[in-house]
């Protein structure tokens, strides 16, 4: 039995229900395409990826590819109205009141706020008297810092700051919280800023995400109550010794998938790829199972690095994954978020005085 140039074992295909799973994903993707794949069908992409792998590992790669948790944009978009209703219900207010009483922030600037408002049919997204333009912790910290450093009154900044602090709730939006480190860092900075500027207001911070992992929830986010639409646990992780993995029918398929991931990470074209240097460094390992040993098979509209690299890695002439990722970080350039936050905190007495909150 052949699939492209790949030889397939019928018993394996049957045991792992490969045909049905691949057909399902293929159909899902036909309807809701994975855009970075530029119109090539999933079956074609899978066949192409398999031919670039050693024959003895191909069937395990096929098992991984067909066990992808495909979360298309349509599905994720619908989660925003659910999330708004859930938060409002938890707070005992209406959805309409939620938007009147909340300041919106997002973890990595990627247009989540406009989508969140649009999906909840909230008008006036660009009205600065309703929605502060300070939509990330960096912007918030930087504007506080600028007020502190500047001799003149920055009207726009002052208005944005006052508006944000006048809201009793700060919703920190994120699309995926997989390792949770970015969100945890933003939450910590947010918390410290609110403490330093408590005279302006003490909003309650509510982390909100479309996708959450149980590992992030129980580790870096353990002191927060995160509102989520989808939560994935160990059942969906391809990691060595993961007895809870339920993606495969046969135990030796998981073992084979682990061998495949280890082989992949050991290849020079992957381990020495300049574009990955910063990510590998931050991950703290060889990323055989994805960033911070995620081990996930989750594919969102841009496959996350926490998922297995065999799903998203692409290098001309060597390997092209079925779900190529458009990298959001390629340099080792670190953000200045922490410095901005520290500056804003140290300038708090001066800023509060300028704003007329303290004498």
């Amino acid at each position, binding site marked *: 039995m052949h699939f492209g140039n790949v030889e397939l074992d019928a018993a394996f295909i049957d045991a792992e229900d490969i045909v049905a799973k691949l057909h399902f994903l293929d159909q*899902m993707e036909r*309807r809701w395409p994975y855009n970075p794949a530029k119109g090539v069908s999933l079956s074609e992409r899978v066949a192409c990826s398999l031919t670039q792998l050693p024959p003895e590992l191909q069937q395990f790669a096929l098992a991984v590819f067909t066990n992808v948790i495909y979360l298309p944009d349509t*599905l994720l978009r*619908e989660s925003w*109205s659910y999330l708004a209703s859930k938060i409002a219900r938890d707070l005992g207010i209406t959805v309409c009141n939620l938007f009147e009483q909340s300041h919106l922030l997002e973890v990595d600037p990627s247009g989540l706020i406009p989508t969140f408002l649009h999906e909840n049919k909230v008008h006036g997204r660009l009205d600065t008297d309703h929605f502060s333009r300070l939509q990330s912790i960096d912007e918030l910290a930087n504007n506080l810092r600028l007020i502190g450093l500047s001799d003149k009154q920055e009207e726009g900044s002052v208005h944005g700051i006052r508006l944000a602090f006048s809201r009793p709730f700060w919703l920190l939006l994120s699309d995926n919280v997989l390792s949770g480190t970015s969100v945890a860092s933003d939450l910590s900075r947010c918390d410290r800023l609110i403490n330093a500027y408590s005279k302006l207001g003490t909003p309650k911070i509510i982390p909100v995400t479309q996708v959450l992992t149980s590992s992030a929830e129980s580790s870096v986010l353990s002191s927060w109550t995160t509102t989520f639409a*989808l939560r*994935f646990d160990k059942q*969906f992780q391809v990691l060595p010794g993961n007895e809870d993995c339920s993606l495969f029918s046969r135990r030796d398929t998981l073992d084979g998938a682990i061998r495949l991931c280890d082989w992949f990470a050991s290849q020079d074209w992957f381990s020495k790829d300049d574009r990955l240097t910063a990510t590998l460094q931050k991950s703290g390992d060889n990323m055989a199972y994805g960033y911070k040993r995620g081990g996930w098979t989750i594919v969102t509209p841009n496959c996350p690095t926490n998922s297995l690299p065999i799903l998203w890695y692409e290098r001309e002439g060597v390997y092209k994954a079925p779900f190529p990722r458009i990298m959001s970080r390629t340099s080792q350039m670190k953000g200045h978020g922490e410095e901005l936050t520290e500056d804003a905190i140290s300038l708090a007495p001066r800023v509060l005085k300028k704003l007329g909150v303290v004498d």
Partner: protein
Amino acid sequence: MRTYFDGVELDAIFHSIRDMPIVLVATPNYEERSIGFSQWFLHTCHSQKIDPAKIFAQFLWPQGTSSRVDLLEKLKISQIDKLSEQLQYCAWTRSVFSYPDDFNERQVIDLIHEATNKFSDEPFSLIIDISCMPRRVIVSVCDAVVEKIRCVDKAVRPLVFFVYASPKKYAAMRYAQNIGNVKGYFSGRPIHNCPSDHVTALIFASLQGYEGKVLYDEVRSRIRSSVTTFVAVSGADYQTSLATMRANQFLMEQRDIDVSYYFSLMDGMEKLAKRIEAEGLVGGGSGLSRMVLVAPFGPKVFTLGAYFMLSNLRSVNDSIQTEIAHVSGFQYLSLYSLGLSHFNVFKLCVEI
């Protein structure tokens, strides 16, 4: 957008009912979740020292003849035996009725009235556990609730809660038995006998998937139709969601079917309410007779939502025919669900 229900926290039941008398209605069967709420609720009533004279539990007991499976019957009896400790603290009754063969909806309505008449001269709370109630019976229970609310004075109207216990997991599905036609609960007739030219079908995808396909084929034979499939995407149990999506692959593949995802039961209710409300705003003029049909093949709470939302749609636009679809005569030869995960409580908020 009105869902006619408020999703409330479990403990909020006690906060709402305060000193009111309580009528608890449940349908124990062979599933563990079928008695889970009764056990918890009666135990909590006892620990909160609620006067036992103010609590009455009615267990509706569907009894079939032709489709009786002795092993499941035995399991059903052992479930109610597990309630024996809690039942010491209140008056209760086991009300047998014929189901599925010789089902008479009036019999169920009368049984509900019998239970609720015990507290007819004061406001009381009516708590109905629909977790293991057959959908057809849920519709009759809704009829009984509406009749009750209509016939009593506003001052003594009951506070109505519906409870749905989500299972820990679903059993491996065995073999489908006696798959029948798609019928309408309101008319009692097969859907293909309903004379509407234009059908709007709102389908909640089921675990097995075949019901949606049967209905889709039926609906597509009309002059005009639009079909929406609501697919559950459970935050806590994505494996079941994935199984449901795979089972309903046919529906998800069809480009003429709109697919909508819901993330919780209440989210599903809200999304259903939006669609039904939009149907009410569509004007006539095409000359085609219209029907809005909800097929709650997924979790049973959508039968409740469909019942009240469609009733309202009829009241705002009497030119629209409405139906709740079901596939008749289907039996499982399995336990259907295992364990108990959590309770979902919906408070009925409707002026009738």
